[in-house]
């Protein structure tokens, strides 16, 4: 029996290469775990029927003496990343019958290394939400307390890793969709620099924010996956090069900025703040210099751009070329019925809000203003990162909430207060487990988030590993 609870990609690599266990043994252990747990947690929407064949192929390559960081490593893939010939629904009814016609670049890269794809994981429809409650295929439950949400939008991926149903996973992050569920489920989630990982083959939510990233149990594992999937891609025109951003010079003492005015405002749970203060003490003991900085609340700015781009990106789903098609009397009625029935409530809400903020009379007041504010914020960050190396916040102002507890959409948007900023500016950010809050007799995971300047994932891994070692 393989002990999956303590297994990491790094240790699995050694055991696979050393023939302690085979890729088939490893995949079988995960399939057994999935069989035991998935019906309760609803983390996976589908388990692929060729998992053991993929593992056998990996074993064949290992037998020939091949070794790649991801060879034979079982992964869960968010239901928004295309795998050729596999169903991909983006958590939506409108794509319930869609089969991908090509591979995403990240899939192509992992496949070349011989990674084993276990299945596709649940998510908020079209990556719109913060709790995976907006999935057309039911909510994903938090492995730490099944009456609570797993967070979102990559809730299925985070829950799968947290519950031992995958060694690691891929998620996508538009405004916190990798980091928030990772914090809620007690795992590590990295949102890379915008353009650092190819978006080719990722179903778009907000094209100027979206990025694919890893969800894993340790920083080292997140780094291994990031190294496997990063890099410039000819097929994604927003993809960056190694030299797009200046290299960060090594320093003896790093300084961390903490936006206290944002953290001290109303709506942050006392347990979260206590835990955060504890984390700061630990970082000071590790030798980091902590500095008070100012950051604006960017929720309004973020959501205006989100609505606008979502309404444009979701316009393509019209039932004409693929996906669900509902027949009406004429072409217009085909559109109205297909979109009306195919899109869930949150998607329809954001499409209408986006249509509104982009309409002629409101464009300047909303979208135009938001774009200007975005440029101003980018400049502010550039100045900030000339004085400090990292920015630290809690990942979420509250721990995981009860399923169905938050019915007002605005109250859910506000949970993204600490995560959206990295997407607006395009900088990398990581969420790391920082302990637990005890709520109603259950221990709910909490997370802290570090942001670094563009291209400085290395700094995030460094601080994350040091923090990991003392927690």
């Amino acid at each position, binding site marked *: 029996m393989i002990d999956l609870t303590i297994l990491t990609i790094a240790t699995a690599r050694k055991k696979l290469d050393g023939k302690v266990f085979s890729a088939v043994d490893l995949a079988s252990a995960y399939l057994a775990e999935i069989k035991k747990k998935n019906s309760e947690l609803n983390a996976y929407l589908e388990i692929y029927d060729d998992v053991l064949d993929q593992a056998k192929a990996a074993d064949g390559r290992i037998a020939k003496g091949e070794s790649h960081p991801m060879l034979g490593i079982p992964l869960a893939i968010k239901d928004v990343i295309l795998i*050729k*010939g596999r169903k991909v629904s983006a958590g939506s009814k409108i794509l319930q*019958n*869609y*089969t991908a*016609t*090509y*591979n995403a670049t990240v899939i*192509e890269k992992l496949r070349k290394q011989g990674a084993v794809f276990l299945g596709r994981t649940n998510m908020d429809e079209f990556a719109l939400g913060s709790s995976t409650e907006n999935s057309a295929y039911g909510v994903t439950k938090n492995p730490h307390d099944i009456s609570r949400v797993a967070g979102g939008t990559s809730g299925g991926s985070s829950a799968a890793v947290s519950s031992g149903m995958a060694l690691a996973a891929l998620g996508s992050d538009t405004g916190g969709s990798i980091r928030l569920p990772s914090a809620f489920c007690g795992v590590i989630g990295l949102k890379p620099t915008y353009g650092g990982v190819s978006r080719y083959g990722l179903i778009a939510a907000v094209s100027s924010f979206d990025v694919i990233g890893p969800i894993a149990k340790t920083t080292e594992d997140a780094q291994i996956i990031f190294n496997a999937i990063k890099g410039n*891609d*000819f*097929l994604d*025109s927003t993809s960056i090069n190694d030299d797009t951003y200046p290299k960060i010079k090594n320093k003896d003492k790093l300084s961390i900025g903490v936006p206290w005015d944002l953290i001290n405002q109303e709506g942050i749970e006392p347990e979260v703040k206590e835990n955060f203060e504890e984390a700061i003490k630990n970082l000071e003991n590790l030798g980091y210099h902590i500095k008070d900085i100012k950051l*604006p609340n960017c*929720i*309004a*700015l973020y*959501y*205006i751009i989100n609505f606008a781009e979502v309404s444009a990106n979701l*316009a393509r789903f*019209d039932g*004409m*070329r*693929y996906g669900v*098609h509902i027949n009406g009397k*004429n*072409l*217009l009625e*085909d559109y*109205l019925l297909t*979109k*009306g*029935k195919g899109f869930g*409530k949150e998607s*329809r*809400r954001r*499409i*209408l*809000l986006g*249509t*509104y903020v982009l*309409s*002629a*009379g*409101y464009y*300047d*007041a*909303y979208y135009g*203003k*938001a774009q*200007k*504010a975005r*440029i*101003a914020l*980018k*400049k502010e960050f550039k100045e900030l990162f000339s004085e400090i190396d990292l920015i630290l916040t809690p990942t979420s102002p509250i721990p995981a909430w009860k399923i169905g507890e938050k019915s*007002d*959409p*605005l109250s859910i*948007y506000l949970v993204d207060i600490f995560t959206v900023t990295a997407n607006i500016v395009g900088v990398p950010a990581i969420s790391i487990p920082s302990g637990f809050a005890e709520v109603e007799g259950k221990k709910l995971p909490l997370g802290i988030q570090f942001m670094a300047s563009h291209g400085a994932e290395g700094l995030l891994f460094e601080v994350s590993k040091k923090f990991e070692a003392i927690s």
Partner: protein
Amino acid sequence: MRGLAQADEPSSSLREHAEIDCLSKSCAKKEFGHAREFRIFCYTFKMDIKDVENLAQLARIELTEEEKKDLLSDMDSILGYVKQVEDLKVENAEPELNVYNVWREDSPRLAQAGQDRTGEFSRDLIIKQFPDSQDGFLKVKKIL
């Protein structure tokens, strides 16, 4: 067809709101004494069900009466919140011009060439997913 043509025109009530909005801005710019009143009016106006219907028509989404009511109240509170973007300071907000076009040949084969992914697309898989097809072409209802 009538429906399509109508849908592309903003509704009269949307236009009205837009005019009020523009008026408030020009007043604010010229620093007329009434500017403040206009601004307050703009901050507090509410959408009505007709606005939701018009937006849904523009976005080609059919809604039930109950959904319209739900959306109206959600949109009022969400738009009320995101309006605070108006208060953000945006001096010095000229975009850095590092945006450039990335061109390639409009061919799936060439597009893949640089990545050694020639012929990756499956024509069969694409056609198989058409809701309706004829002789390998996508079939849709009459447009004109």
